[in-house]
């Protein structure tokens, strides 16, 4: 079988087989931006954290905000893909791969953020020499490395049959596909083992993903700072993470749909279904936000109150209310209205949510630090060019890594699409039959 154009799924291999000039140009441009950000970073490395806008008492800023933001986005993937696989949602097939790639890339980027935030990155290994497991930072290191391992394996395993196919099509570089295909020939036994492995991983990955953002929230909630010391922070962060994650998948989907002409695979129904999920997460997010602020407001403890008013009516009011508009009002209007719930509508709402969730992280991290309990001199936090540059570096790395991935591997799982075409219809039909009252009582088991 050559890579013939008669293959119904040829379009999925096309970006891998035909590497156009556009990709090189885009990649080059991204590399230039990335190089510039690294020059900026070298300033911080040589001079110290003084090149940031940080101070006392606001000693955490963009780096920590972006850390929480990027790790939040990473919940897109693996979690959504695992939940959709687990619930046997047939429409998942063109989505899972992209979702998993987001996780792996963003997790790697997010995980670097605490390191660029260190005053002494040269002493990073002290975390292993002298690590205290009582510190929430160590919980983070543990959870994130665990999640990164699980999610990269979970990304890689379902790619094996596709990689093997690229190997068989003699796509260059051959050694890469030869190596990564791991001797896959597609025998029944291999398929069986693969299915088993995927099943184990998808069950495993869900609690790990939940734990990751929970312990990230613990960094804040374990301290006594007003606005942070809250018991609902764990679930609040997890909800926000899944929320921004789904939004990220939707944006990536609509980009690839346009660029790679995947209209046949990513249909309005996929956007509508994920849009509904997004709406649910938006409502959940609002519920948590409302509960969190009402509790603080009603209790009216002076320091808590000062932080809340700082967000609602003070310096951070513009960010806070933009966040509410982006995370709640825009999604609510667009996603609960059939007329607006088109592909472009859902994509617009998703972009708004990504912006809104970034603002949420900002309004959680900075205001609590800007309102210390003791009357130390009031400071404002203005991020410096270096901090903006490193934010740009994160986004550039994301785009670059995704570009690279899409030029070496299909962004949609081809074998799963084919499996869906071949067996999915029958399987669903059989399954639905077992739901019916006419079916015997023992039949509805699996």
């Amino acid at each position: 079988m050559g890579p013939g154009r008669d293959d119904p799924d040829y379009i999925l291999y096309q970006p891998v087989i035909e590497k156009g000039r556009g990709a090189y140009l885009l990649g080059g441009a991204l590399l230039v931006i990335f190089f510039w950000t690294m020059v900026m970073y070298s300033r911080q490395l040589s001079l110290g954290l003084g090149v940031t806008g940080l101070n006392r008492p606001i000693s955490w800023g963009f780096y920590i905000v972006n850390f929480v933001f990027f790790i939040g986005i990473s919940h897109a993937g693996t979690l959504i893909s695992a939940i959709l696989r687990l619930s046997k949602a047939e429409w998942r097939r063109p989505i899972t791969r992209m979702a998993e790639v987001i996780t792996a890339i963003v997790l790697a980027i997010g995980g670097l953020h605490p390191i660029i935030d260190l005053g002494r990155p040269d002493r990073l290994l002290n975390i292993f020499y002298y690590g205290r497991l009582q510190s929430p930072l160590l919980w983070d290191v543990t959870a994130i490395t665990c999640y990164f391992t699980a999610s990269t394996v979970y990304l890689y395993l379902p790619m094996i049959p596709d990689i093997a196919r690229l190997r068989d099509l003699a796509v260059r570089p051959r050694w890469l596909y030869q190596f990564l295909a791991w001797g896959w020939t597609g025998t029944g036994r291999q398929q069986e083992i693969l299915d088993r492995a995927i099943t184990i991983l998808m069950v495993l990955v869900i609690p790990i993903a939940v734990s990751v953002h929970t312990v990230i929230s613990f960094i804040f909630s374990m301290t006594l700072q007003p606005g942070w010391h809250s018991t609902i922070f764990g679930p609040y962060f997890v909800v926000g993470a899944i929320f921004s994650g789904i939004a990220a998948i939707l944006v990536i989907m609509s980009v690839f749909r346009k660029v790679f002409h995947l209209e046949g695979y990513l249909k309005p129904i996929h956007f509508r279904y994920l849009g509904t999920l997004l709406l649910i997460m938006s409502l959940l997010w609002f519920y948590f936000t409302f509960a969190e602020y009402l509790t603080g407001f009603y209790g009216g403890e002076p320091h808590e109150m000062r932080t809340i008013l700082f967000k609602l009516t003070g310096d951070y009011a513009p960010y806070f209310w933009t966040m509410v508009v982006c995370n709640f009002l825009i999604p609510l209007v667009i996603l609960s209205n059939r007329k607006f719930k088109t592909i472009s509508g859902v994509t617009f709402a998703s972009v708004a949510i990504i912006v809104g969730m970034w603002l949420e992280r900002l309004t959680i991290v900075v205001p609590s630090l800007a309102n210390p309990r003791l009357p130390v001199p009031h400071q404002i936090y203005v991020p410096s060019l270096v901090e903006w540059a490193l934010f740009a570096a994160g986004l550039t790395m994301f785009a670059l890594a995704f570009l690279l991935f899409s030029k070496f591997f299909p962004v949609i799982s081809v074998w799963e699409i084919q499996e869906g075409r071949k067996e999915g219809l029958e399987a669903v039909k059989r399954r639905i039959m077992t739901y019916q009252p006419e079916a015997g009582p023992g039949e509805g088991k699996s």
Partner: protein
Amino acid sequence: MPSWGMVIDLNKCTGCGACVSACRSENNVHNVGPEQSRLGRAIFWMDILEEVTGEYPDVRVHYIPRPCFHCDNPPCTKVCPVRATYKNEEGLVAQVYHRCIGCRYCMVACPYAAKSFSWYEPKRPREFLQACNPDVSLRMKGVVEKCSFCSHRLQKAREEADMGKREMTESDYQPACAEACPTYAIAFGDLDNEGHTVSRLKKSHRAFRIHEELGTEPKVIYLSRED
């Protein structure tokens, strides 16, 4: 184990800043310059906080000298990922400058803003280095530092008492700020030792600890203002 602590009488404090200067020269605290200082990068081991109350024309400024409180239940040591800040065997909250990775989690966790960070490589002019106290190590860029209750003085005092085969007395160990205070607003000693001034002062009806409700159990006790 003694419970080293401080009692600061706000009635006596005039906000003169002698404690701050004494602390800076005793502990080799470097200056960051006016520009960085405005940005909130100044380093203070002992600091004087100003609390402004009332509205014009009935405005009052209160001065609160603020060292590290050396909490018995310190929120900062709990969160340190590498044990670069910990409660030592004398009950003091110590910093290990050479181990600190500069994550600033302890700064964030301290409700009293008692910790400082070196944002740039400290600039130490020749005059500064010539006048340095040889008992206190110089801090490098990118680590957290704070008041140590002049623990180097404690070390010395202990050794001297041991050599003379006698018990340590109250005057053997006094931090620089307490020594320098012209109005005797700062008293220092063992809070549990009946013979020490602080154990008497802490029983005053004016005694209070800042944000006691947080459960941090600070070992710095204030005597409130009567006016």
